[in-house]
């Protein structure tokens, strides 16, 4: 025999300022909570989507990223001879030997420097990465000092736009095309011909070898065969796994920092809710006594106040999620600690985050409203009625 739901809800709408202020406190906390999760999600999404589930990345054993890695020409050829590789166009294995280095470029406007990935690619590189699409200009001519830039680089960096020039490794390079790789990490890269770049940078070794497997299920056996070959000092990873690992440290940091901050903030919001609910109970002592006198049980009173606190939390939760959803229009660019390279990514709102945020706000509501609700339920009828 519960007290009607509209009783709890209307008590919130009747005290508009208090409800608004308390819910605002909770909304801010939910906003930070959601923003943090969205940021980590966006980072991982960018990096994970960068990889394809059938591609394999081979780098030197122990190096954590392509930048630190070095694969000798001989070793690269051995990889090329693996039977597990899919055959691409022209009957050749779908495999690319790539060079990955970082160069320091100034950002447009602020001139602040950042490390940008330059990837020396081979013909198969484009086939291996269908996410990468040329949207402006053309591909570099073989043997020339021409490069193409990812959309994010073209927008953010001096000299990265179409027709512009970049100077490094003692040569001047012209940007002849812009490519779009969606929200993946490739959009923050510059691509050029691997042989030209290796020559310019005087790097005699590759950074990595990428290929597509005929049958991704055979990955484990291929990996153990490759890595146990005494001539090899490499390790193989599924491309999706490789990029996931790249984001791990940073995503973890973001999550830990964000969640611990949110926890501290939530204490403030919960205290706010508690103050509000205690005041609500104190102001409605006669009402509570009347309801009990009419025959409502203590449990019903408890439930009515908990429901009120839950509604409060829900209002705060929604109020916090709406602006958080707008964050999706913002792009963050920062240095990824593991790869040391510039990475642009944005906030990503998933249904999971929505659910978590709403649950979080409901929990805050209950945390704040529980003790006051107990106080309301424990009241003695006569004492309550007498206080009018």
């Amino acid at each position, binding site marked *: *025999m519960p*007290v*009607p739901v*509209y*009783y709890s809800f*209307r*008590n919130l709408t*009747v005290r508009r300022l208090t409800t608004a202020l308390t819910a605002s406190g909770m909304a801010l906390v939910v906003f930070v909570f959601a923003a943090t999760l969205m940021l980590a999600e966006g980072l991982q999404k960018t990096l994970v989507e960068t990889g394809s589930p059938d591609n394999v990345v081979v780098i030197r054993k122990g190096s954590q990223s392509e930048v630190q890695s070095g694969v000798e020409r001989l070793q690269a050829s051995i990889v090329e001879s693996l039977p597990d590789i899919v055959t691409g166009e022209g009957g050749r294995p779908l495999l690319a030997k790539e060079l990955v280095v970082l160069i320091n470029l100034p950002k447009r406007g602020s001139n602040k420097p950042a490390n940008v990935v330059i990837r020396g690619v081979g013909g198969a590189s484009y086939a291996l990465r269908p996410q990468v699409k040329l949207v402006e200009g053309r591909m570099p001519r073989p043997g020339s000092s021409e490069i193409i830039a990812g959309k994010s680089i073209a927008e953010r960096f001096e000299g990265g736009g179409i027709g512009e020039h970049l100077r490094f490794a003692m040569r001047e390079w012209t940007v002849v095309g812009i490519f779009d790789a969606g929200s993946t990490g490739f959009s923050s890269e510059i691509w050029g011909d691997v042989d030209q770049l290796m020559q310019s940078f005087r790097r005699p070794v590759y950074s990595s070898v990428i290929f597509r497997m005929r049958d991704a299920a055979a990955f484990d056996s291929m990996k153990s065969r490759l890595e146990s070959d005494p001539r090899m000092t490499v390790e193989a990873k599924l491309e999706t796994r490789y990029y996931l690992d790249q984001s791990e440290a940073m995503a973890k940091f973001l999550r830990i920092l964000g969640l611990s901050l949110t926890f501290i903030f939530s204490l403030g919001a919960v205290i706010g809710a508690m103050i509000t609910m205690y005041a609500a109970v104190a102001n409605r002592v*006669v*009402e509570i*006594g*009347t*309801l*009990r*006198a*009419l*025959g*409502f*049980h*203590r449990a019903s009173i408890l439930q009515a106040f908990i429901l009120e606190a839950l509604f409060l939390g829900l209002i705060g939760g929604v109020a916090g999620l709406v602006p958080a959803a707008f964050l999706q229009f913002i792009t963050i660019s920062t240095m990824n600690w593991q790869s040391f390279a510039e990475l642009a990514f944005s906030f990503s709102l998933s249904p999971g985050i929505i659910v978590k945020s709403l649950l979080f706000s409901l929990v805050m509501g209950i945390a704040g409203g529980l003790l006051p609700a107990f106080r309301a339920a424990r009241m003695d*009828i*006569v004492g309550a*009625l007498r206080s*009018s």
Partner: protein
Amino acid sequence: MKNNHSADLDEGERHHIVELISVSKSYQRGSQIIPVLEEITFSIAEGEFLALMGPSGSGKSTLLNLIAGIDSVDKGSILVKGLDISSLSESGLASWRSANVGLIFQFYNLIPVLTAFENVELPLLLTGLSGRRRKEQVETVLSLVNLTDRMDHYPSQLSGGQQQRVAIARAMVTDPAILVADEPTGDLDRASAVEILSFMDRLVKEFGKTIIMVTHDPKAAENAHRIIHLEKGVLLNPSQQKA
């Protein structure tokens, strides 16, 4: 609602709907125990309009609370319609009250966030009635107190007299055995007070309800069949006739 022509029967033939037997109640303040009621024994007949009067601190409100089942006795027993309510648990009392007692307070005690209709509906929510049946009951009692046109108003939009009428409707909606009123006219102007008292009169004469009313207003007491005086927790004159 039954029409009980109990007014035609003389006292001896009426059933005693409420019986108090040696009821005592005291309160604890710190380490002191303060007695409020001492060995109160009397009965109330069905269809009776009883007024409880006495100076402040006499225990009249406490007595009312005990009869209504809002408070419990220390010693003795209270029987309502033959049921010993002093033996009921707290939740048993709650259930018993919702079906058997109608409450009327000095300050109306309406729930501010509920409309007149919803306030009157409250006690019915504790029964198993369907929404449709509840609506019928509420509309019936609201028409009884002539407030059908204001059923969607909130208490803040009603005058004192109107609010008390809503309270009376709420008290009647479950067709309870007894109605308990604590200073029902205490916060009303003369005209509204007269109106409320005449309603309460109708409840007794037309519907045969039993009303127990605490008041300090002699004019209000004039409407009662019998007045009981309390002083320092003791009955002064157990039977008094209405003047």
